[in-house]
């Protein structure tokens, strides 16, 4: 039972990681690419590490639980640092004066630096 659940979570996480990698290649510009890069990775990490924590905790001994809690602490760390890093990258783009890709048929131009 635990093995099935872990496998499902791991597979789901890997699909998100794959989506992140494909997204970086497919999306049109620097800013759009950050969406799959920064966030699908976070989701993939949550699922894969969640699977590992579950699998470890299933051992049932105290040491196993401590290891599971440590893994969850890693998830918490990533949930704080990942948006910060993503924001730093976006900010670097804005400071360098790169304007985002927009659809041509929408017309209106936006100036990020304004």
């Amino acid at each position, binding site marked *: 039972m635990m093995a099935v659940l872990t496998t499902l979570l791991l597979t789901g996480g890997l699909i998100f990681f794959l989506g992140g990698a*494909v997204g970086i290649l497919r999306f*049109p510009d620097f800013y759009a690419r950050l969406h799959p890069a920064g*966030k*699908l990775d*976070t989701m993939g990490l949550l699922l894969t590490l969640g699977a590992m924590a579950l699998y470890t905790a299933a051992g049932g001994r105290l040491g196993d639980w401590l290891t599971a809690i440590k893994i969850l602490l890693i998830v918490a760390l990533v949930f704080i640092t990942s948006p910060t890093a993503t924001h730093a990258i976006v900010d670097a783009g804005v400071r360098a004066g790169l304007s985002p*890709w927009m659809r041509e048929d*929408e017309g209106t131009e936006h100036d990020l630096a304004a």
Partner: protein
Amino acid sequence: MTHPVAPGIRSRFGLSFWLTFIICMITWLVLSGMFDLFHTGLGALSSFGVAWINGHNFAPGAGLGRTLGQWARFAAYVPWLVWQIWRASLHVLILTFDPRMMRRINPRIVSFKSRLNNEMGLFILANSITLTPGTITVFASVFGRFTVHTIDDASAEGLPGKMEERVARIFEA
């Protein structure tokens, strides 16, 4: 930034000190995983040191009861946030593998003024927006002006709306 220390937690060994000590000690025990006298003793010693120097920072300004309430409401906010992240992640994942992706996305820069008025609330809102796939906070000022990059119309729709409301609720009362 300096906060005036609220009355009642002024004493060095007040409740604030002990809460800091207990949290440090739990962290130590979880990370070390050794429960013999020597290792727990080291942990107690360093936890004491941290709480001695830093204990009053646990409840800056607002007072201890309020801070604890905020922590509790923040803890209630996290599961909701994870649920939002999960929903939005699926949306971006489907977008990524869609052959007609280039016709479905519509990147935009959305600006809005947040009604949150404290820095921690703005920080949590900015990070929550960035964590949710489809939206990235480009800029957030201390006065609540937000600039957000959104990937498509569905992601832009929810801004700031419900998320801001939830964050505001953490700091209520």
